[in-house]
């Protein structure tokens, strides 16, 4: 996983609550056995006017001009501003893969669904939870100011605005450590292989029917 220390970029506002993983990446793209290639199909049903298929050439497809990520002023956005319960629904990790492969590095929202939150951080996609009032203000400022950018500092746990405001956010220290250093979770867990083996032996004695 790529390290996340400090990033800043253009903000795109996705102004709807309960954005689900079916919307982020529709089911037909989950048939892929690869980890890459999902970017062009992020928000496929909202972004395009026709129906996308896993093997279709996306370059010539008719775009929905009203969809926020198709608006010229948000081209190249790396920060996505979103509403409550972003990422609800299925456990498909294709959702964070698609967001990242599209170019999104950070998502800011008042709340996220649990599984999506986990999946994203494991891939180096930073999800930031801020107070709904602050998110509201960021939505207003993004709409009002063309080229609105935010700077995210994971080390300091801050989101900074062009006007000089800075908002603190919470993150679990373990996850922060992994993201800052681009650490592989499996490697970290396997460093405790002896503990796992010891637990397993005890567990086998207590509940032999599980083995």
């Amino acid at each position: 996983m790529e390290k996340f220390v400090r990033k800043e970029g253009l903000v795109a506002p996705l102004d709807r609550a309960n954005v689900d993983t079916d919307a982020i990446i529709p089911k037909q793209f989950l048939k892929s056995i690869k980890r890459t290639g999902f970017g062009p199909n992020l928000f496929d049903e909202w972004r395009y006017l026709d129906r996308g298929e896993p093997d279709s050439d996306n370059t010539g497809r008719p775009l929905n001009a009203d969809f926020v990520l198709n608006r010229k002023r948000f081209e190249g956005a790396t920060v996505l501003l979103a509403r409550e319960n972003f990422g609800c629904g299925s456990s498909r990790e294709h959702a964070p893969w698609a967001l990242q492969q599209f170019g999104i590095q950070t998502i800011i929202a008042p709340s996220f669904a649990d599984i999506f939150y986990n999946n994203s951080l494991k891939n180096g996609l930073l999800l930031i939870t801020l107070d709904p009032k602050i998110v509201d203000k960021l939505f207003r400022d993004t709409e009002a100011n063309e080229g609105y950018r935010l700077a995210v500092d994971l080390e300091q746990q801050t989101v900074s605005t062009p006007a000089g405001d800075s908002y603190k956010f919470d993150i679990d220290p373990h996850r922060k450590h992994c993201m800052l250093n681009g650490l592989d979770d499996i490697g970290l867990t396997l460093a405790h292989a002896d503990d796992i083996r010891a637990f397993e032996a005890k567990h086998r004695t207590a509940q032999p029917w599980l083995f």
Partner: protein
Amino acid sequence: MAGKTLYDKLWDSHLVREEADGTAMIYIDRHLVHEVTSPQAYEGLKLAGRKVWRSDSVVATADHNTPTRNWDKGMAGITDQVSRLQIETLDKNIKEFKAKVYFPFLDKRQGIVHVIGPENGATLPGMTVVCGDSHTSTHGAFGALAFGIGTSEVEHVLATQCMVMKKYKNMNIAVEGKLGTGVTAKDIALAVIGKIGTAGGTGHAIEFTGSAIRGLSMEGRMTLCNMAIEAGARTGMVAVDDKTIEYCKGRMFSPTGALWDKAAAYWRTLTSDPDAKFDTVVTLRAGDIVPQVTWGTSPEMVTTVSGRVPDPAKETNPVKREGYARALQYMDLKPNTLITEISIDKVFIGACTNSRIEDLRAAAAVAKGRKVAGNVKLAMVVPGSGLVKAQAEQEGLDRIFREAGFEWREPGCSMCLGMNEDQLSPGERCASTSNRNFEGRQGPGGRTHLVSPAMAAAAAVAGHFVDVRNLE
């Protein structure tokens, strides 16, 4: 010191180690694997040169992509080459990395991963269960701790047998009293989500308690726990009782003999202590719950069968108001429309929520001697597994469905998510026993209304939503 909740007990009995900040390693007993969320995980193991820690914890099947017709043609019956490659990739991965058991496409025990786990005794009380599918919460019905996980976590559990996580808060959803006739576990689930919202359970482990929950069969409890994730909770559970233990007896992977007695004695301890503390408590009266129908594009957009589509203009929260308006536009519904005036194009009875034998019996009881209405283009019944299908056929349910004009299909996830060819066409409206009514979930532009199996069958014969309790 306060007593422990069921969740506390399951957590403590699987805790391998814990950091000072609460980050814990939790041991996983059962890993259910299917074709969609596993290929990249196995690929990751291969690339890193890692082994599977305990292959006999893995139970695998192909369910999401599999067709529900043309099984006589074998693999050639899968016309979608991308789907076929994914199913063949699972075959290859299980061959290479091994499993306790694999029920591949066409096997008589194949089926939806959340149906086959319990019915084969691969899900047992007291277990930790994970699967790369959010509806893994289903298995909590057995007094098990069950989580849906993403592909990175699938790889992590394959390699380490552990999940790295922090403990959730405890939530008690208590449903007291007796359910009315024609009111089911599905209606409880939808009523709970209507009350607390789709993010109401976020950050919590839910235990469903109360006399109405104790009164549910194991299959009803599975339906309820299945939908815990739609309330935002990654895990939902019900305490062990006689019904739990009775259900597990004699299944393929259930213990036998002296081991059974020892296991059953332990399982009986898997209840919350009377003085256990919950962080959040939600109470519902079973007698207040009536058949539910969703009208929008989120499971929390739900009302009773006698209700009306809401008017967004009356909603004070602006984000909600806009969400309602967008949902009504997508669903092509006008404010204040009576639910019973909404006519349907298709009916889907199936999915990990409602495809077990009792679900099919309930739907068949409604379908018996009636006919699917002329305006309904397709009413399909998709059993949850090969075993459910065989049982239903033995009971003659397939005949009842066929005579009423329903299609009787082969098992799989089917039109719950439409990864195979079972999909809604744009604009089509469906009465569905599945779990999600998101935009495009059952097919791009499709409109989903979530209901119980009996309500779906009633809608099929009436051609529109109708209170199954008043069906003539």
